């Protein structure tokens, strides 16, 4: 379907991960006095980088939680138009159980975003091409936040963007190719833009639910019209949901486990064995080479290879059924068959924009993704594919890398001939330290928010 995307109104994170902007810092804040919060928006507006072609040295993005939108004065009947998951928030107790945020990942112990800390209302995302530039802009952000009377800020500095995530694996290789963006021209398979941005047809050819409001509530005509032609204005158009989770990685524990699990009976150790076991868990080698194409050893030439399927590895002899990438995106490997599985997989894609952090303040990943439908995309992948111990016929295997081990799921099975190898009692390598569901509005919606009480 030919869709014209309003790139000048969509925030840039939709179109790019700012890979040239190797330095990033995120700031989560509470909005105290609403009018002052709006002053901040006035200042921000000219600085928000959009999805239109961009060559600046600094990019700024802004997003809000449901509480933040309410604080800014967005009426309840508009907020009600957002997805239930967004309105309830990431730390709703039933949701925590669903997402695996229990025990050591319990929101009550989070560094930010938890029920006992300051309310996470807004998120500023700053990307820069150099460290001094980042620091200068971060200082300006602090000043502006202070001026607006914003309190309860948490600064989340990212590590300089490198090729690997903290466990040592090349990351972020597989991304959906979005119809309507330049890369789509060369792609065999694309995902409709409506999967990642509201107001455009999604994978079912329908418009995902979004907050509409009577045109009379927008007398200055700042918002865009509802594309269905209902006469309402669409606060959600060109916006999308942004999932932000601070995932702390136990790098030492991860490699200690690999060492212990691959130590030979005589106590000797071969470092290639531990890398091979870790690769089985990930589904790619540290270079990024996929196991289905390089089953026996790393092949750096395949580092960015994303052109593969699982149909020739139905039993998981090359890439285990339970491997991280085979669960996060099962491609063609689910029942009832390859074609249906590819379609189903495309309805559960995430546009990932992660950055690593540490070692100061722990080591891990700011997992960031955009999704038009939180339930069908992020939550589905997290619960049904990553954390489910019975994923795709398994019994007790949650995701070996990121999965929760409570109450089940601490096994990792490596299919082999003649007999599989089973690793039991996997420790938890990743725990959630903070997070929230944000909404990344279109620029016109930010402009609307900025003038709400005037």
């Amino acid at each position, binding site marked *: 379907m030919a869709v014209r995307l309003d790139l000048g109104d969509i925030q840039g994170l939709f179109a790019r991960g700012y890979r040239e902007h190797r330095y990033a810092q995120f700031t989560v804040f509470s909005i105290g006095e609403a009018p002052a919060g709006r002053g901040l928006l006035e200042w921000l507006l000219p600085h928000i980088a959009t999805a239109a072609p961009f060559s600046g040295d600094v990019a700024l993005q802004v997003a809000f939680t449901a509480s933040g939108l309410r604080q800014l004065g967005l009426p309840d009947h508009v907020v009600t138009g957002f997805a*239930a998951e967004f309105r309830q928030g990431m730390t*709703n107790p039933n949701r925590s*159980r669903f997402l695996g945020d229990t025990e050591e990942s319990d929101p009550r112990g989070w560094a930010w975003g938890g029920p006992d800390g300051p309310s996470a209302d807004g998120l500023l995302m700053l990307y820069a091409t150099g460290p001094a530039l980042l620091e200068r802009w971060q200082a300006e952000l602090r000043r502006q936040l202070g001026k607006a009377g914003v309190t309860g800020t948490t600064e989340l500095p990212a590590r300089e963007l490198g090729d690997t995530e903290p466990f040592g694996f090349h990351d972020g290789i597989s991304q959906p190719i979005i119809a309507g963006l330049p890369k789509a021209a060369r792609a065999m398979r694309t995902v409709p833009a409506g999967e990642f941005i509201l107001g455009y047809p999604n994978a079912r050819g329908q418009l995902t639910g979004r907050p509409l409001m009577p045109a009379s509530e927008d007398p200055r005509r700042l918002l865009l019209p509802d594309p269905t032609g209902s006469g309402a204005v669409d606060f959600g158009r060109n916006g999308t949901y942004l999932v932000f989770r601070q995932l702390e990685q136990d790098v030492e524990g991860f490699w200690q486990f690999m060492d212990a699990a691959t130590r030979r009976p005589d106590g000797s150790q071969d470092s290639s064995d531990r890398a091979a076991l870790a690769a089985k868990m990930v589904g790619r080698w540290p270079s990024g080479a996929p196991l289905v194409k390089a089953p026996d050893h790393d092949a750096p030439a395949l580092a960015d290879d994303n052109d593969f399927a699982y149909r020739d590895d139905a039993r998981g002899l090359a890439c285990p059924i339970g491997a991280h990438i085979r669960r996060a995106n099962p491609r063609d490997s689910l029942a009832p068959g390859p074609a249906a599985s590819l379609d*189903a997989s495309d309805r559960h894609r995430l546009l990932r924009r992660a950055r690593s952090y540490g070692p100061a303040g722990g080591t891990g990943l700011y997992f960031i993704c955009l999704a038009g439908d939180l339930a069908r995309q992020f939550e*589905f992948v997290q*619960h049904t594919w990553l954390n489910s*111990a019975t994923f795709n016929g398994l019994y007790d295997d949650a995701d070996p890398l990121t999965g929760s081990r409570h109450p089940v799921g601490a096994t990792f099975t490596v299919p082999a001939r*003649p007999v599989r190898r*089973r690793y039991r009692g996997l420790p938890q390598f990743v725990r959630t330290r903070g997070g929230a569901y944000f909404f990344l509005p279109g620029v016109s919606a930010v402009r609307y928010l900025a003038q709400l009480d005037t």
Partner: protein
Amino acid sequence: MPHQLGVTIRAQVAAEQVAPLRDWLAKVASHGTADSLFAFAHMRGLHFAKLFVLEEPADSGGQPIPASLVLMTEVDAPLRSHLAELIDVAGDGIDQAFGYCTDYPGAGAHRRVRVAWLRRHLVRASAVYVNTVGRGLQQIRQEARLRDALEDYLDQGDWDGCTADDVRRELQAYVAGRADLAWAMKPPAPPSLRFRVREAAHEVGVPLLLAPLLPALPFVLLPWAVLLRVSELRERPVTQRPALEHLDELASYEDFVTQNPFAVVGFLRPGLLRLVTMRAVMLATDYGVRHVYNHADLAGIKTIHFARWVPLDGWRRMTFASNYDGAVEAYNDDFIDEVWWGLNATFGNAAAYPPTRWVFWGGASYEQQFKNTLRIQQVPVPVWYTAYPALSAVNIENNARIRAGLRGEMSPADTEQWLSLL
């Protein structure tokens, strides 16, 4: 092995007892684990149980429908001993629960009186889907133990240099040598002869009975299709969304173990046409689940352990209830992707369903309308019991195939395939 039953017991609750009953249910709510009050775990052949309240509908569109308490169990036959055990084993809970109903004889009454009361309150299902007909609780548990034993045995061995045949022979010898597993070398016993004869007669008899009507079919189908299409054109899209409090209550009983309970209830669209359509579709569903989808697969969905369709209040309302693996979002996606046609044909006759086109199309394909309406119509199930909380339906089928592969001759390729089940 026995066949399986979907038992429904429903009794009226007086208006002033609804709130106390709800409070009591919330107090004894099981959150995915067996609870001692009902002692469900001690009942023979009980796979699943759920207990929930159907509130008095605000707008019944006619004669008011009082609130009721519903007990649903999935259990191995026979019915008689199950009803007796509900009193003899689960009696404490049953007495307390149905004590909120208008005419329950009470804990003091003789057990025979209470069993007879349960029997009088049985509600007949139009169709009951059993993941694999004839696979009883004992078999499911035994085969899970067998799989565990084989996995442990494989963990302990050093299989380097062995062929798949070597490994299989060792496993066969291991099982045959363990007195507590020796049963696994024999196939599971089929359901009773009486049951099999009855099902075979039904399988053949229904088409035979319908065959003489075939010539008349075009004369009936055409006007029916036109009338139904006209009725469909009057349907309106679902604009309602579930309330957050309702979603929270539903979620508070979900996602504790591998499976989840599901129960929706809704009014049929008014009129004879819809009633006749619904009854015809239910007859077809009954035939389909008994003779076509009776082994590990409901029209492409492999995650449902049991499901049932139960007409209520003289076919004014319909309940669909199931026990399924995974989350409700995934369940709904499976519905939309795999059995949209069946859902539309059935639920298309329900008042709050997205508009259908020519019976089979539309409906579930409107993803968000469909998901919203199911969530709105869904009833919280505060008391729920599962006999095998860690096993998915795919696991159970896999366990049965592991057992089956212990017997007989196998090619090397088949042996390798079989070993990959472990």
